[in-house]
């Protein structure tokens, strides 16, 4: 049993962090695009902004369990199989990147407009403004958003059992719920609680490190 629990912890961490990483890699640039195409921003473009906003909202409105099943063909295309831990990563990333994009957009909106104006007055290019000013100033909010995303992903990963993804949630359902082994259920839940606490603590610490100067 211990081995199975350790394996499940590994699977959960693997799914969550790989999916999280992919979500950040896709979500971050999308969030910057969402922000930059807002009215009166660096690359204001109402049409593009609305289309992208609609796409992201649409993805965010699909319940995870349905999304997971609906994109099975896409998952198979990406990782060659629709079953297993790797296959669970695709829908997890798919559910998380729109969230990251919105988090990112909101973090950038919070940066005072005066900083952008001052940078422009100093002759900064739009890329320099995004890279050197906005991302750095918004970093604490971005880190908080990513922490939130990871915690949400841990919750979603419990559902990954539906496609044979394994993980702690799956273990709790299979042993604790379906085989009435309450102790397994309790142990997995406790592990999940500890895991979420640790991630939240780490995220807060990183965010504090970025904002220590303020």
């Amino acid at each position, binding site marked *: 049993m211990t081995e199975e629990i350790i394996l499940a912890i590994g699977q959960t961490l693997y799914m969550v962090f790989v999916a999280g990483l992919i979500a950040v890699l896709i979500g971050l640039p999308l969030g910057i695009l969402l922000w930059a195409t807002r009215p009166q921003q660096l690359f204001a473009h109402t049409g593009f902004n609305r289309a992208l906003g609609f796409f992201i909202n649409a993805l965010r409105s699909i319940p995870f369990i349905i999304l997971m099943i609906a994109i099975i063909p896409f998952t198979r295309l990406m990782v060659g199989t629709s079953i297993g831990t790797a296959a669970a990563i695709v829908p997890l990333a798919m559910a998380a990147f729109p969230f990251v994009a919105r988090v990112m957009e909101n973090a950038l909106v919070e940066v*005072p407009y*005066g*900083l952008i*104006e*001052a940078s*422009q*007055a*100093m*002759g*900064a*290019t739009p890329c*320099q403004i995004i890279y*050197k*000013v906005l991302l*750095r*100033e918004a*970093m604490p909010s971005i880190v908080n958003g990513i922490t939130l995303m990871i915690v949400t992903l841990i919750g979603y990963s419990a559902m990954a059992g539906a496609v044979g993804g394994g993980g702690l949630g799956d273990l709790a359902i299979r042993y604790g719920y379906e085989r009435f082994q309450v102790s397994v259920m309790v142990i997995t839940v406790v592990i999940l609680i500890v895991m979420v606490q640790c991630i939240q603590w780490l995220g807060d610490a990183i965010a504090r490190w*970025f*904002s220590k*100067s*303020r």
Partner: protein
Amino acid sequence: MSVMIELRNVTKTFHAKDQELHAIQSVNLTIQSGEIFGIIGRSGAGKSTLVRCMNLLERPTKGHVLIEDQDLMTLSPKELRQARHRIGMVFQHFNLLSTRTVFQNVAFPLELLKRDRDAIHAKVTQLLTLVGLSDKAHHYPSQLSGGQKQRVAIARALATDPAILLCDEMTSALDPETTLSILELIDDINEKLGVTIVLITHEMEVIKEIADRVAVLENGYIVEEANVFELFKAPQSEAAKKLLTKALKLELPNHLKEKIREYPVNGDHPVLRIRFFGDIASKPVIDDLIKHFNVEVNILQGNLEYLHSDMMGILVISITANADVLLQVKNYLRERNIVVESVGYLSH
């Protein structure tokens, strides 16, 4: 002297939903190299928009913006960024990067230019000495006072050796004492580095302290342009008069104001506001008046100010004089280059 900034027929109109807002209307302005030029107006007069037209943070709807004979309106984005290195800007709310130290903030414009580390270090050290913050190089903006933050912003604006420094309400978030020290610094920079200064403000105090010339902005129009002494001496526009009245505390206190009427009733004494400038300020004008006309003069309010080295005095007086004598008094004063205005008549 050569021309540093020239605005030709600059107009800026904002479009909001179905409304048009005319922020700047056909402004023509010439600012000489090395000058400290003030632009004053109430909030909403268009000052901030006007100063943003000078580095094209706001692109004018119409007109030309010439900096050192180069029309910014015709430049490509890349050329404009280069031109902006010649134009430093300082803001009301400092706009420092909170995640960078004082040193890193001042280094920022040089990093944008990809200068090497040694050059940046030398320049930043020199600038921090200039603004008196050498000991705060490794502090973060949140650890500084408002005045110190503005000094950092000034140092940052000077990093690229600009020919012009645009100051948008730079002292409006500061207390009077700090305001004075910042203005002294600006004066110093103007003198030492020969940087042309454009000061946007709603406070006549700021203009009085350091500006050479001033433009009064109202509803997007320049309603008056003069050297500062001339403006204080004889403001032409209503807007300028109002701003001066406030700045020089020329409003009579309410209990006196209530007793002043437009037309005399028997026994009322006329009230005059007189302004005198330069040499005359040191002469016993009131004393002469009393002796010459055998009248009683009562000073209701007074203010003596120095504009750079010139003295300026403003008095509100009531005189025991009938209409004939009053006319003579006025002429007597005007012959001595004293500006006389009737305020009304003081009832008993």
